[in-house]
């Protein structure tokens, strides 16, 4: 889905530049940008709330993908073409795919539900969230900004070139360090997910050999109900002497006390009488 969403953006560079030009001339926002913003921003907020409320993890992941693609639009609208591309490639293309893979791996479990298990956590979460939002919005809204300068001058040699000058110039050391961090992270992930086998693998052959060696019963255990009056699950099978074989009844039934005590069909004395007749 993310690939689909990213397709028109990545599709052609001229479209992008044209879009950027129509949206921004200087630091001031154009009407086109305003329209874009007011369309995209509510979508983003709703999608983000989906993260908070979606029952299924996959839905949550998809809404995050939506938020991230929208962010890419906003970056481009703000003259950050390079970042917009990277956002799509790295986040929607790589990171969120990774998330989806892990979700598939982990599967669905009880933790997907929205039922709160920690007492008071919901209240605290809401309180903290609303408080944080209030503080942040209050600060952002309450600040008086100087007139926006705009990036026309900084992007004179195109935006990627401008960013590249900084990344490979002033911030080259940080860049190297971040490169090392990535390598380390990759190694770390390998180590964390690596599963070393401590014992040789026990296949079917090994298990069968072990059973023979231990002298256990090689044949399957007797099925319940065999030779008994009824062949129900809870009736013990009878051995050749007519005695009930308790272990033929399922362990669970025995534990619950639901096994029927089946008297032998023919008690030993009866059997003798019968043979005499």
């Amino acid at each position, binding site marked *: 889905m993310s690939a689909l969403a990213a397709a028109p953006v990545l599709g052609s560079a001229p479209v992008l530049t044209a879009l950027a030009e129509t949206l921004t001339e200087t630091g001031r926002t154009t009407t086109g940008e305003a329209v874009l913003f007011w369309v995209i921003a509510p979508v983003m907020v709703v999608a983000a709330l989906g993260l908070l409320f979606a029952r299924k993890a996959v839905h949550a992941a998809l809404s995050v993908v939506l938020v991230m693609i929208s962010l890419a639009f906003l970056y481009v609208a703000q003259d950050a073409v390079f970042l917009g591309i990277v956002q799509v490639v790295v986040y929607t293309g790589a990171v969120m795919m990774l998330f989806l893979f892990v979700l598939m791996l982990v599967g669905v479990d009880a933790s997907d539900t929205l039922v709160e298990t*920690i007492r008071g*956590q919901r209240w*605290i*979460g809401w*309180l*903290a*969230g609303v*408080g*944080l939002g209030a*503080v942040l919005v*209050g*600060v952002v809204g309450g600040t008086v900004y100087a007139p926006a300068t705009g990036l026309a001058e900084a992007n004179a040699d195109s935006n990627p070139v401008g960013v590249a000058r900084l990344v490979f110039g002033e911030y080259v050391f940080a860049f190297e360090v971040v490169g090392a961090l990535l390598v380390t992270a990759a190694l770390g992930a390998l180590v964390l997910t690596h599963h070393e086998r401590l014992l040789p693998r026990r296949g079917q052959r090994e298990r069968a050999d072990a059973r023979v060696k231990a002298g256990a019963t090689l044949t399957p255990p007797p099925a319940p109900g065999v030779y008994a009056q009824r062949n129900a699950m809870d009736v013990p099978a009878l051995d050749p002497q007519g005695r009930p074989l308790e272990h033929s009844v399922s362990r669970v039934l025995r534990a619950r006390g639901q096994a029927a005590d089946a008297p032998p069909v023919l008690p030993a004395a009866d059997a003798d009488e019968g043979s005499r007749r």
Partner: protein
Amino acid sequence: MSLDLLAALLVAVPLASAAVLLVLGRATDRWGHWLGVLASAASFVIGAVLALELLGRDAEARVLDVTLGRWFDAGQLAVDLGLRVDPLSITFVLLVTFVGTLIHVYSVAYMEHDASRRRFFAYLNLFVAAMLLLVLADSYLLLFVGWEGVGLASYLLIGFWNHNTAYAVAGKKAFVANRVGDIGLIVAMGLMLAATGSVGFTQVHAAAAGGAVSEGWLTAIGLMLLLAACGKSAQVPLQSWLGDAMAGPTPVSALIHAATMVTAGVYLVVRSAPVFDGAPTAQLVVVVVGAVTLVYGAVVGCAKDDLKKALAASTMSQIGYMMLAAGLGPVGYAYAIFHLVTHGFFKAGLFLGAGSVMHAMADSVDMRRFGGLARYLKVTVVTFGLGWLAILGVPPFAGFFSKDKIIEAAFVPVDGQPWRAWVFGAVTLLGAGVTAFYMSRLFFMTFFGRPRWDVPEEEARAATARAAGARTAGANASGAHASGAHAAGHHPHEAPALMRWPMIVLAAGSVALGLVLATTGFTTWLEPVTGHAEHEEPVLSVPVITTLTLLAVGAGLVLAYLRYVRDEVPVAAPAGSPLTRAARADLYQDAVNDAVLVGPGRALTGGLVVADRTAVDGAAVGVGRLAVGSGALARRVQTGLVRSYAATTLLGVVVLAGVVLALQA
């Protein structure tokens, strides 16, 4: 060989022997006792060589100070490992090693059937080494080492048969009583350090004699030394352990609790002569302690039916004589030591005789079941009799020369105070009479009169009932004591030669030692240590005192003869007068100790335990509970739930940001 080395060997040889016997253990079982005898004898030979060396010198040069090296160095206090060989210490050395060797020989036979004879000899050697260190030390601190060493050996030997609980308890009692005295010695050393900055004899005595230390200090030091002496020498009020110490094997009683160790207190007082000379009050206390103990021991000795305990009471009384003499100042020091030496001989002989009697009577000590033994134990009765005459002070036996002199000295007025002469003179005179009575009683009850060891138990009971008459019948302790071994018939027999010869030698000493020492100027020989005493006239003339003494002795002897030879001795002890009953119970010394010390001590410790449990432990446990409680409270915050932590973090951020914003606004 240098004299320094000889002096060191004196102590080292028995110590090494003890170490060998203890370390090699059972490997030495076969010959260990002879090694012990050899070590003791070697010490005697070395001591004799040193004594001859000293005799060959001028009187002023008869001090041999041996420094073996620096012992320890603690700031301003530096103590050398030094020995002092002088007339006083060499006298002790000869006494200890000579009597010790004899008793070693005796023990070879006496302990023959004891499985741990080797251990016994190891302890005896250890005792000899410690005692020699005690008398040879040239500082109070080194003396203290020997002092503790003999205490340890005494403890080990009293409780030698520790499988018998009563004996083990007796050893413990002696140990504890001695510790009380040891505190005195430690405090005395502390006072010396404070007053003179040293614990060496030379320095302390020079300071005391030179007037560098005030009389108050000297009195304090003297009283503390006296406390130590009381503990070691079983003087009132620390006398209670000596009677029980008879639980040890008889050779131990002879060597440690009669001849040598118990006299260490007298040695300490005499050795500290300059201190006491400067503290008349302390001297008076010494005299009083000596006089009280003298009478105390004599009274107890009159009532005891236990042969060894009667002898122990006698020892206590005789040491009281010595202590009294030592408290009289220069006039008495030499006679204290003189009596100490002669007493060492005759009392050791008496104890060995007692051991011989016990050997003959299947370890019984009840004199009421003896009688008529003279016929069976011919050597023992003679040696014992000579010792008896010596302790009575009958001329010309040893005791006469030493004890008479003490009585004379007691009659000499001190500081021009005639009342003291009269009081203490009378006490010593009375003591001599009582001594004669109880020693004769002991002697007669054991060796003369009708043999009583075969009297059957029933007859004894009947006799008791007759004796008790209308009074409460059979309420006495010794009646029960007279059971057990007596039921079987006795066949008294003389001891083997190894036991006889030491007794004979000691008896010879009891006969002649007094005369020899008196005529060869023993008191002059001691003068370098004890100081020269100006001759002073006693309040009565000397012949009068001698006559009175002999009269008192004769009266005691005759009284004893009348009561215990002419009259029948009841097999079971009669109820007796209140005084007799009190004396039998050691004048209630244990009851007094229990009431005065043990009871309050127990109450105090009990209170402390309660206080400790409630207050101290309560505080400690309370602090712990507080910590645990607050920890449990704080723990509830640590849920381990990431989301709780995140919520906390976020709330914190919100609150902090809110505060910052509010402050900015």
